[in-house]
């Protein structure tokens, strides 16, 4: 866990990609869940942030 936070702080690719992946997954789940329309409404924004973030952080050093 501490290596994960350390990686985040030092702008390493691995942990940041993990964060971006989780955001994308969260967005997709929000898009298709049947529980609350408010989650559906905000899902696209979350996915978009996750995707843009993924493109950026995949250029961080290993």
């Amino acid at each position, binding site marked *: 866990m501490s290596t994960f936070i350390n990686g985040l702080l030092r702008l390493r690719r691995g942990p940041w990609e993990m964060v971006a*992946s989780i955001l*994308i*997954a969260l967005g*997709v789940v929000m898009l*298709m*869940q049947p529980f609350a*329309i408010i989650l559906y409404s905000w899902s*696209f924004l979350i996915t978009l942030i*996750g*995707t843009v973030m993924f493109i950026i952080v995949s250029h961080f050093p290993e």
Partner: protein
Amino acid sequence: MIDTSIDKAAKATPVGLARRIRGLSDRTIAWIFVAPTIFLLLAVNIFPLIWTIRLSFTDFRVNRPNRVVEWVGLRNYERILSDPDIWATMQATAHFLIWTIVLQVLIGFALAFLINKKFKGNDLWTTIIVFPMTLSPAVVGNFWTFLYQPQIGLFNYAVTFFTGADPASFSMIGDVHLAPWAIVIADTWMWTPFVMLICLAGLRSIPDSIYEAAECDRASKWRQFWTITVPMVLPFLMLAVLFRGIENFKMFDLVVQLTGGGPGNTTTLTSIDLKREAFEKWRTGYSSAYAVILFVTVFGLASIYVKALNKVKER
């Protein structure tokens, strides 16, 4: 350009010869080789993509070319993301996606596990199982409507044979409760072999020595399955799940031929809904925004997929 092979080759040869070898520089050749591909992809993929994004902020309609096009800002997005009907198509997609993945993973993994027991003739039977996967989804959807016919269909007949229900009493594609399952069954029939093949590759990548070591430690078969087999196959399984997830998120051909989105809207998956908006109602601006939402979602999932690909590649 420090130590490419050609440089090494050049250093090892006399000067005059080196010039002839090079002819065109590597950099030029690389560009000549890559440029047509990039150009075609720019023309057929990127340019249209940018066009879509632009259109998504307008109220353009293809069928009324002379009407003044107005910029509407984010209004198309607001309308789509607050529309309960589109939300419903997302849920229909989710139902389809989740159940196809669950069934395909369970059956696919089980099959791979059994095939990996290396019984006689397993190659032949694997090839037979793989057949549905490479067929045209639209044609498959079309002939499944024949199998699902009440009374005369093979599927209904098989159900009757095993349960004794009247084959004319239920219609897989005409009933609002059964239709979502009809598409799940057809897709599972078609794509289980895909998951099976990938799982099989995962199983075959596990070296025998690990099991031998476990056997020496007197670990039970059950324990070996959960501590060796499953974790080792998991990256492969992830790959299969992500790929099927992306494919079924954008599912169109199989389902549109099988049910056409009906009855009612019970099997109207997102792509089918988008097709209606774009090519039947001709609301081009609106459906462009719809398309962008799907693009971004698929693009995000594809990034995770490539990450999973690289993980498997390292094995």
